[in-house]
Each structure stands twice: as structure tokens, then as C-alpha cells.
């Protein structure tokens, strides 16, 4: 049950939007597929890729994403399924040694992630995200640096949740560690430092909260409060599902930590990513798009300002400009100059004029040659 139990067959690009050096690269491997089952692995990859393509915001970012499939054959099919966890007792010989029942937990399906990294480093070191699909229809999966999931209905959601962690640095938005109703202690109230993750916070002040620009003026802050911090908050969402605010209960604590929307894929599988998570995904993948939002800023009423924008390539950009966030707002801009820097980067400067009587928030936009 190791690398002796199969072979690395090769790598195939299955979503091709350009060279790996220019795109955000997802790499998918399989475990527990015999040589004769690799065609099935190809189909299973395609099913996940279609699921991902149908998941906002990946659909709108698709042109920035490549997907690579690494074919790995195993001696046997499936995954270890120990009797100790109520499994069948199967012990197939597979390349990455996929097994349920890790830590005595039936649904915890893991692979040898060191071996996965060794294969990826050799086959496709430009990977930004790595996933392993295990050839079993029993539900299971796991996270960490390598997202692993089975072929059971809904298990692909584990891959999307784990991609949120690994590729985009999202925190868990659920409010318990051992599970609501577990009687857990030590998770009543988060009292620590501001979390570094973009989708959880301790800050309910609408003037300083880190996703404040997405919070409507009419939305209360905090948006919900847990009346009994000894357990998970049982209340339903008092506001429309799309409302961004500060909902109490996140980061394994019943109180004291807040999430941006009532639900999110980082809170419970099967939900869309919340607006804050979607924005971070867009920002992360933006450099891989042919055209993208470079950054966002605000210019005061009647002001003229100049910004410097640096792109690590030469020649890098076909066009740069600005786009007001508020529909109907207008700005003038020009790009009076650019220069090539030592090392091959390009420095642009752009002058923006706001002739209106109100401040205007805008995106810097760029498109590649």
C-alpha cells in the first residue's frame, strides 16, 4: 500500500486556457483506480470540473483557470475501509494508500499527502491547488494541503470547501469544534486577536469591519447575536439570504467571532460561497485573467490624483484604465507614461480626475497583451 502499488502514468491538461506559467492551475490526481479504470477517472475528473465550472465565481473566472489531470494507476480498486469503523474490512493496494477511518472516524478519508506532493512536484510543479479523487462511492473526504474526496453524491462539495481553505485562505465559518449538541466546552466565546482570515472577524463596527463596503446602511451590526453562548445559536436568518453583515458564531466559537453572511460554503456544504469569499476568490484569480480588476480606490470630490501601478513583466499590459464602482458615476483618466524597470517589470502611472461633487470609488482595470 504505497508507491510500489501502482504507477504514475502521466499528466494531461484537461482545461486549457493558456500556458501554465500564466494561469491558475488546479491539479487533480486519482487513487484506487486500476490501469483499466483510468478512463473512469477521466470521467470522474470531468464531472468535478463541470461542478466547479458551475460554481460562482469560478464560472466568471474560468478563462484564468487551467486544470491538469495526473493519471496514477493502482494495483487494486477503492480505499481501505477498516472494520473498526464499521467498514467492509477491504485493504486494497493503492498508490497513495487511501483509507477511511483515520483517527477512528469512519468518514475521514485520507491519502499519503507527502507522496501526493512528491508526484505533483515532479509532474506539475506549477500547481496552485491539488485534489485527489478516491475511487469509492462511500462518502468521505478530508482537507489540509491536499483536498481529498470520494465519488459519493455530494462529496465534490468537500473539494470546493477545502479549496476555499487551501487556495484562498478562508476560515471555517461554523461555530462549533466538535459539533453543535456535542456538549463541547472551551468554545463559548472567542476572545482572541483579530483573525487573519478574510471571512471571519471580531469587529462589528461598521466603520472599521473588514468587509464594511459590502454592508448596507440599513443592515444592523452585529446582524445577529447569540443569546446563549454555551451553545450554537439556534435562530434562523432574520434577513434575506444575500444580506452581508456580521452574524455571530464562527471559527469554532458560539460567540465573539462573526461571519459575513448567514450561510456560506465555508459554514455548511451545499451553500454558495458568501459574497466576501467570492470577492477574495476574484481578487486571487484576477492576475490570471486576460482582463481584471487591479485594485480599488476612492477619489474625493473635485480631486485629481496620480497612482503608480507596477506589473511584473515587460511588455505587460495592453490597456489600463479606471471603472467607477457606482453605476452612472464618471471619471476622467489618462495614462501619461510607463517605464520598464530593471528586472523586466513595468511601471505605469495613471492620473484620475473626479469632476463631480461627490467622492467616487473605482476599480483600476487592466488587460494583457
Amino acid at each position, binding site marked *: 500500500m504505497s508507491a510500489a502499488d501502482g504507477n504514475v502514468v502521466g499528466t494531461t491538461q484537461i482545461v486549457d486556457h493558456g500556458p501554465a506559467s500564466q494561469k491558475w492551475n488546479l491539479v487533480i490526481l486519482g487513487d484506487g483506480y486500476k490501469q483499466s479504470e483510468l478512463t473512469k477517472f477521466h470521467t470522474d475528473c470531468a464531472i468535478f470540473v463541470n461542478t466547479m465550472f458551475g460554481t460562482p465565481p469560478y464560472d466568471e473566472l474560468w478563462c484564468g483557470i487551467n486544470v491538469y489531470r495526473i493519471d496514477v494507476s493502482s494495483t487494486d480498486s477503492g480505499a481501505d475501509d477498516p472494520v473498526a469503523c464499521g467498514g467492509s474490512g477491504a485493504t486494497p493496494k493503492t498508490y497513495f494508500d487511501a483509507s477511511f477511518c483515520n483517527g477512528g472516524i469512519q468518514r475521514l478519508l485520507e491519502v499519503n499527502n507527502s507522496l501526493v506532493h512528491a508526484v505533483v512536484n515532479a509532474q506539475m510543479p506549477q500547481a496552485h491547488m491539488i485534489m485527489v479523487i478516491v475511487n469509492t462511492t462511500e462518502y468521505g473526504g478530508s482537507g489540509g494541503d491536499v483536498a481529498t474526496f470520494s465519488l459519493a453524491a455530494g462529496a465534490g462539495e468537500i473539494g470546493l470547501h477545502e479549496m476555499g481553505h487551501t487556495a484562498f485562505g478562508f476560515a471555517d465559518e461554523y461555530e*462549533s469544534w466538535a459539533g453543535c449538541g456535542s456538549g463541547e466546552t472551551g468554545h463559548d466565546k472567542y476572545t*482572541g486577536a483579530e483573525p487573519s482570515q478574510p471571512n471571519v472577524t471580531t469587529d462589528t463596527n461598521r466603520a472599521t469591519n473588514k468587509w464594511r463596503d459590502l454592508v448596507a446602511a440599513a443592515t444592523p451590526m452585529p446582524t445577529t447575536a447569540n443569546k446563549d453562548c454555551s451553545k450554537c445559536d439556534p435562530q434562523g436568518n432574520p434577513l434575506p439570504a444575500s444580506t452581508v453583515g456580521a452574524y455571530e458564531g464562527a471559527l469554532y466559537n458560539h460567540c465573539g467571532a462573526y461571519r459575513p453572511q448567514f450561510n456560506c460554503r465555508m459554514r455548511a456544504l451545499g451553500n454558495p460561497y458568501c459574497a466576501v469569499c467570492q470577492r477574495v476568490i476574484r481578487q486571487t484569480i484576477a492576475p490570471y485573467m486576460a482582463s481584471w480588476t487591479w485594485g480599488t480606490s476612492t477619489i474625493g470630490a473635485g480631486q485629481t490624483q496620480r497612482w503608480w501601478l507596477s506589473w511584473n513583466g515587460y511588455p505587460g499590459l495592453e490597456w489600463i484604465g479606471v471603472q467607477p464602482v457606482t453605476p452612472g458615476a464618471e471619471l476622467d483618466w489618462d495614462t501619461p507614461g510607463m517605464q520598464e524597470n530593471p528586472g523586466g517589470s513595468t511601471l505605469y502611472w495613471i492620473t484620475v480626475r473626479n469632476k463631480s461633487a461627490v467622492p467616487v470609488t473605482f476599480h483600476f482595470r487592466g488587460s494583457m497583451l
Partner: protein
Amino acid sequence: MPQVAAQPPETRSYNKALRLTFEYEGSSVKLVSTQRVDMILPPSHPLETKEEQSGFWFTLSDAQGKPVYRRAVTNPIRYDREVFSNDPAHPSIQRVPVEKPKGTFVMLVPDVSNARTVQLFSHPLEPAAAARGLPARELAKFTITPEQIQEGNKQ
């Protein structure tokens, strides 16, 4: 004319990278391989934070100790694991402790010739301490030498 003197660091994009592979056992972390690859990296997060934060991040610093790249990521050193239930009556995600934390993870940093120091910052790794949100501190520091760098695939 008012000017912003420099571009925000998060707007800079790097297209040459070092793929760093680490192994860990408990809180002991080793850098086991360094590959040079042509790939675009996600933008840097702000290089400095105004306040203490919990979580996990890594920085790449230049010879003067000045950070040039920073990314906050999910802690790859796993002292607990996520478990997913598909029980239709109780679909849930919960966490369970890892008895002997051990594994491999990868970090991608820009390949900048005068920046070769990588630092990992983490809040305390034990799950109970992590849930309390204690501020992150330096967990490990590595200096990458030219001899360590292998050439990876280029496209």
C-alpha cells in the same frame, strides 16, 4: 497634485516563483525542497498588519529583513482535521484532534534574487489554544541558498 507615492503592495504580481516543500512533525518544520518554476503568484497580502492577529501566514523578506511578500493562509500544520457527515438528518462539519501531527505542505513565494528569507507565523498549534485566538508568533525561519534551488518544469 496629490499623489500616492507607491502602488499598494497587493497590486504587484510576480511571475517567477519558488515552490517550497516543507515537512513537519509536531511544531518542528523542515524545508525539504525548493523548486524554481515559472508561474504567476497570487497578489501579496498587506505586508504589515496594524494590530496583532491570530491565524497563519508566511513572509518572504529581503536581505535587509524587509518583507516583500506575505500571504495569510489556512494553517497547513494540522493538529486537528475536518470531518464531513452526509447524514441527511444531521449534515455537519466537525473537527477531531490529530494524535501525531505529521505531514507535508507547500508554499509558493516569489523568486526574487535578493529575498531569500522565509518566515512562518502561526497562532499556537494545539486546537484549544487556536480556538482562543491567541496572536500569531514566528514558528520557523528559513534562509534559502542558491545551492538548494532546483529547476522545476517551465512552460
